[in-house]
């Protein structure tokens, strides 16, 4: 997935000399190829993220296409105001790349973990929020981010979990869900984003559930969510992000207004990580490992089947 990211970035930069990569002194080996192929389009702006985002706005104002890279804990979180005021307010074509979202930096603690970035960015007008699930979605998301010619936050989470699609997505349509598999219509449907789609697929296969990937957190297409509701019996959302303000919230906002149903929001509970450990360990700490999620989804299937829900 990171290779797909690097390849897409290099391809876009080679094709358009206005594409610039700005990094806040992060991404050491990730940009080897970029630095080799497009050395003049590479700017290490130093450990100065706020200035870097403001600078990207200035570069965009005079015709450049900045891609601004940082860890999601810093891009967007440290620079939310610069993103709002300097970039989104003026609808500038700047792509913000937040790497290591969720618990990727599990051993480093709270400073490098990011479970609030979707919530913060979704509320900024004109800013689109993308969260690709595998290398195919990553390639399509990069192409979309470049082509849309406006402000985009592209969230990059745990990247080595494997594919969820069987081949390339030719193009992403704004806000559209991508159907991953069909399943039983009398059971809940799953909508997952980013790093959680892989686990959602395993669970969906074992319980024969319908599954959609949500490469967009914003916009999110009302009709697609309605269709998901109509095709299933309740919904489950899965994300490596707070249960507040992320995918679960975005889906619930639509269902509550347009197609009321029950939505089980599975994500990071409203608390910080307590302990140190691997990514898999932290998922367990927050009840997001595949076994814990499967148990919750199974119980939810039974609940929905029991007709005890008014």
């Amino acid at each position, binding site marked *: 997935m990171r290779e797909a990211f690097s390849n897409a970035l290099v391809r876009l930069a080679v094709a358009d000399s206005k594409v610039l990569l700005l990094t806040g002194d992060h991404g050491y080996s990730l940009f080897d190829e970029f630095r080799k192929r497009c050395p003049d389009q590479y*700017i290490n*702006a*130093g450990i*100065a993220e*706020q*200035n*870097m*985002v*403001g*600078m*990207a*706005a*200035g*570069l*965009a*104002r*005079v*015709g*450049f296409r900045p891609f601004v890279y940082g860890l999601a804990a810093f891009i967007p979180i440290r620079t939310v*105001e*610069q993103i709002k*005021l*300097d970039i989104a*307010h*003026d609808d500038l074509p700047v792509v913000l790349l937040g790497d290591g979202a969720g618990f990727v930096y599990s051993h480093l603690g709270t400073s490098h973990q990011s479970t609030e970035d979707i919530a913060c960015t979704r509320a900024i007008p004109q800013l689109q929020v993308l969260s690709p699930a595998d290398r195919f979605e990553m390639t399509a998301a990069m192409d979309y981010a470049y082509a849309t010619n406006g402000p985009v936050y592209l969230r990059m989470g745990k990247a080595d979990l494997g594919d969820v699609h069987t081949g390339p997505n030719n193009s992403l349509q704004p806000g559209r869900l991508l159907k991953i598999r069909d399943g039983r219509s009398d059971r809940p449907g799953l909508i997952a984003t980013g790093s959680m789609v892989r686990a959602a697929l395993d669970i969906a296969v074992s319980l024969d559930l319908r599954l959609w990937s949500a490469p967009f957190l914003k916009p999110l297409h009302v009709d697609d969510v309605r269709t998901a509701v109509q095709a299933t019996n309740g919904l489950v959302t899965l994300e490596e992000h707070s249960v507040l303000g992320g995918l679960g919230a975005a889906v619930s906002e639509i269902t509550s207004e347009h197609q009321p149903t029950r939505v089980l929001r599975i994500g990071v509970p409203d608390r910080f990580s307590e302990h140190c450990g691997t990514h898999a360990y932290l998922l367990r700490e927050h009840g997001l490992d595949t076994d814990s999620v499967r148990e919750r989804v199974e119980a939810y299937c039974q609940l929905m089947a029991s007709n005890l829900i008014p």
Partner: protein
Amino acid sequence: MMSPIIESSMTPFDPVRMRRTVLEMAYAGSTIHIACAFSIIELLTVLYRHHLRYPGNDPRAEGRDYLVLSKGHGVMAQYACMHELGWLEDSHIQNYFKDGSDLKGLSDSRVAGLEVTSGSLGHGFSVGVGIALGLTRKGTDQKVYAIVGDGELNEGPIWEGALVAAHHRLNNLMLIVDKNGFQAMGTTDDVLALGDLPAKFSSFGFETLEVDGHDEIAIDAAIRQLWAAGPTKPKALIARTVKGKGVSFMESINLWHYTRLDPKSFAEAVSELGFTGASK
């Protein structure tokens, strides 16, 4: 439409007339930040009169120089310049702050003629650094002027941007500090002392000069001298100014960061500027 205010004097960007325009706006909109605008009037007079280039008198011309008002609180002074240029009508001045109007109390980049959305301080300078870097990469001779308040120098991103500007040898960028000695709650010395600003910017790698920020001839000379010097360095002009300059009862009285004009103070201020009567 020929403005009655413009008709009352001959030279464009006349500081007295621009202060009058600011007073008209502030009175019409019953708004604050008059003193913040008054301290940068002569700086803007010199920049707009002698330095800023707007091909075709088009505020959005691709080949223009950029005036980034990072201290967005002084925006009424920039509106006064835009009024001189004919980019704003008298009605913009008279309808300031009316419901549904476009001109806000802080710089908003969606208004043609304003380059950044500022007022949240420490933003505009970084955007200016990015513009200067972009223009350098494009190989144009366009210039970027970024006006920051001395109080604004409290903000961290200013110093991040200063490092970056020097590192990338942005010799098309001029940082102008409106050193009026005040910020919202008191003097800069009392709130957060800035120390020796010329020494600070010199040590950051800027070609630096200090000037009386109300002496048009000295400002113009300093700007020319900075552009002529140090071909690999960004420039810093530290302008010693007086907050509220031009109206005696506002000068260095920090209340005028916040105070609104009433009919009496408006008439007195206008009269002090040498006008016989207020137009409204």
